[in-house]
């Protein structure tokens, strides 16, 4: 706690709650109308555990109605609409998201626990950018895929996670619509509110009824959607465990599938790296969004010759992280998304201590209510420890060391996952050598956790298949006559 911070105590800087206009109860958005849900559950704020609203728990019958609405919209106009008209709808959505960015950012932080700084500066701008980007491609598919005669697939069932609720919605819906498909999307159980607010964006954009349908609910709703015979394609982002279950469930169905699953990314720092920037990259890599990031740099590999100064710098930097109210503009690390996730983080952290790793947590006062976890660094971690192998999906970093590039590479690739990796060195040839050999879908060199609609994202091995973003992100939503 420093003088400048002390002076701020008692004077939090909350973003304006009034922006988040909450209803007491939400239905499902089906066929352009609100469908009164048969069952509901309560969604809460993870920072305070306060209830925010009642939302629907979609039943198989409701899933059926949504799929039927999507099918009808596909057959009755959307797939036959001039591509330039589809593009205009997407541009409208992008623009409206920008106009209402503040409202969405506040709601995202309220319902998901992420710092308003991040929902304001990352989630919302990127979500709008995705719609802009794919709006641009909507009427240029022939150019994008020359001689392949692209066609839409039909109805896409999309299931998204709770870590970037609106952004993942944009990643899913924008390319699907640009390619001429219609959509049934289910947001995560714990973070339904921005998706439900998005329905109001669709109203303002005057998107034809049924082109986008939104169902809330837990895994049961997701399973019903995956199973539904009227769905032509499933896109899922979430845990590897659920991804495998979906792949199994779809066996023999002939439905198209893309999976964006878990990760255990290596962030590799060589002794010639720009250390202060590497430290920023490490911090951004693992504490961004409380570590609720599938591509988080959760395994830090440090060349032994700089181990001590680097860990010292890291420790020092951790002391400046501010953990607390997600709606405070100065908060760096917000609330853990759910009680369940907090329990999982605690369990894995306890295993790390038991197995013999050294734990470091900066002094930090946490609020009494809500779900919180102090940013944590484990040193003296062995490759075999659970904290070095399993995805924690929380603000917990495991530090390991290496001596040579070859060793760093071997250890980095020694995982069933393959989503992302980081490399920090000032030597250009070594960056390319490493980037070529790392088995991961995204390699960040001298940076970390950068995202852009033009940049394909997705994993190797058990981190899933298919790419989102860029031209490659359109392919899963198209079939080709070739």
């Amino acid at each position: 706690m420093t003088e400048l911070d002390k002076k701020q105590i008692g004077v939090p800087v909350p973003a304006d709650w009034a922006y988040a206009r909450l209803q007491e109860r939400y239905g499902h958005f089906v066929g352009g109308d609100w469908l009164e849900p048969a069952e509901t559950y309560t969604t809460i704020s993870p920072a305070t555990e306060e209830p925010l609203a009642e939302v629907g728990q979609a039943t198989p019958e409701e899933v059926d109605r949504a799929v039927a609405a999507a099918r009808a919209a596909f057959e009755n106009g959307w797939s036959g609409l001039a591509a330039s008209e589809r593009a205009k709808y997407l541009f409208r959505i992008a623009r409206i998201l920008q106009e209402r960015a503040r409202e969405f950012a506040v709601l995202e932080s309220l319902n998901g626990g992420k710092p308003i700084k991040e929902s304001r500066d990352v989630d919302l701008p990127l979500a709008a950018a995705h719609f802009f980007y794919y709006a641009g491609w909507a009427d240029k598919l022939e150019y994008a895929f020359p001689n392949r005669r692209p066609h839409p697939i039909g109805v896409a069932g999309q299931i998204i996670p709770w870590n970037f609720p609106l952004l993942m919605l944009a990643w899913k819906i924008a390319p699907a619509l640009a390619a001429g498909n219609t959509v049934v999307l289910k947001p995560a159980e714990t973070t339904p509110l921005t998706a439900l607010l998005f329905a109001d964006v669709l109203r303002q954009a005057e998107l034809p009824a049924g082109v986008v349908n939104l169902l809330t609910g837990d895994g049961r709703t997701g399973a019903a959607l995956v199973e539904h015979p009227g769905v032509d394609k499933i896109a899922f982002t979430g845990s590897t465990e659920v991804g495998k279950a979906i792949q199994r469930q779809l066996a023999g169905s002939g439905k198209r599938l893309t999976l964006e699953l878990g990760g255990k990314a290596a962030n590799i720092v060589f002794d010639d790296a720009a250390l202060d920037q590497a430290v920023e990259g490490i911090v951004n890599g693992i504490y961004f969004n409380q570590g609720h990031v599938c591509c988080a740099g959760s395994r830090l590999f440090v060349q032994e010759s700089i181990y001590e100064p680097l860990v010292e710098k890291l420790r020092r930097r951790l002391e400046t992280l501010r953990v607390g109210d997600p709606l405070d503009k100065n908060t760096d690390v917000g609330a853990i998304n759910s009680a369940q996730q907090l329990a999982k983080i605690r369990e894995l952290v306890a295993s790390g201590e038991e197995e013999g790793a050294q734990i470091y947590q900066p002094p930090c006062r946490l609020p009494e209510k809500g779900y919180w976890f102090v940013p944590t660094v484990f040193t003296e971690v062995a490759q075999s420890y659970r904290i070095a192998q399993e995805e924690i999906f929380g603000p917990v970093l495991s530090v390991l060391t290496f001596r040579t590039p070859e060793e760093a590479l071997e250890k980095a690739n020694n995982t069933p996952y393959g989503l992302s990796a980081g490399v920090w060195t000032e030597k250009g040839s070594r960056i390319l050598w490493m980037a070529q050999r790392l088995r991961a879908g995204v390699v960040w060199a001298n940076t970390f956790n950068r995202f852009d609609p033009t940049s394909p994202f997705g994993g190797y091995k058990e981190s899933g298949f298919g790419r989102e973003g860029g031209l490659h992100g359109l392919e899963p939503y198209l079939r080709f006559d070739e």
Partner: protein
Amino acid sequence: MAQAPALPGGFELPLEPRLPRIGSVDAVALEERAASLAKRSIKKDAKVWALQLAIRCTDLTTLEGADTPGKVAALCSKAIRPDPSDAHVPSVAAVCVYPNLVPVAVDRLRGTGIHVASVATGFPSGQYPTDIKIADARRAVEAGADEIDMVIDRGAFLSGRYAKVYDEIVKVKEAVGDAHLKVILETGELGTYDNVRRASLLAMAAGADFIKTSTGKVNPAATLPVALCMLEAIRDVHEETGRLVGFKPAGGVRAAKQAIQHLVLVNETVGPDWLTPELYRIGASSLLNDILMQLRKEKTGAYQSPDYFTLD
């Protein structure tokens, strides 16, 4: 006389136990970090505290060919009582002038505790023979300046003659005796953040009490990324040697908001120990009135007009 080896070789300089590795700086990540710190929201009490601190850390500066005893006298009055209507507004840290005007400032500021700083060593270009630069600094001290803001020889630095840069700082440090030595890197002429870091370490190794960004005669001057880069070098020297070296951004800091951003940078990079005039200064002229306007706005709740604040 100690001789500095050419950088970026060993850099084994007479500082115990050792200097931090020179390393390099990634420009994009540095700028992103600086931009993210600039977004810190500072409100109410903390803001008033920060603005008053900024005044206490100000080196109120006039460095014009047209400077006269009258101009400097007026500046000194402002330095002592920046806002005569508000007793809570503190005095500034120092008044910074050309050597010829040091006697005027010394005379005006006697007994106030406000320091007299003088630029020297062929300010602003530094393109003069070494003996002239040393004499320049010595004369300013003899005239009563207790702080010397010297410039490094950027021509020597950019042509790789690091030892010459180092030697000159060592010699000036000897020449000014007990006076506080601030070494101006003129970062706007150094071209890269790598060079800013090298020059920062070089100046600290040679004995600088403060390192300072700019003369105010070159753009860009005290940008946030440059400040962050220099503060990181200062922090590294402190970590390695325990030595506390001060920092002075100068040039381009005109608005109260910028001053607060600079203070946030200090707070989060080197820590609150540096939030004191002993280790932190802001070189400025027009900044002071903007801070005064902000302070009065915080006090009264009403937005202010420049007509109510004196131009000196």
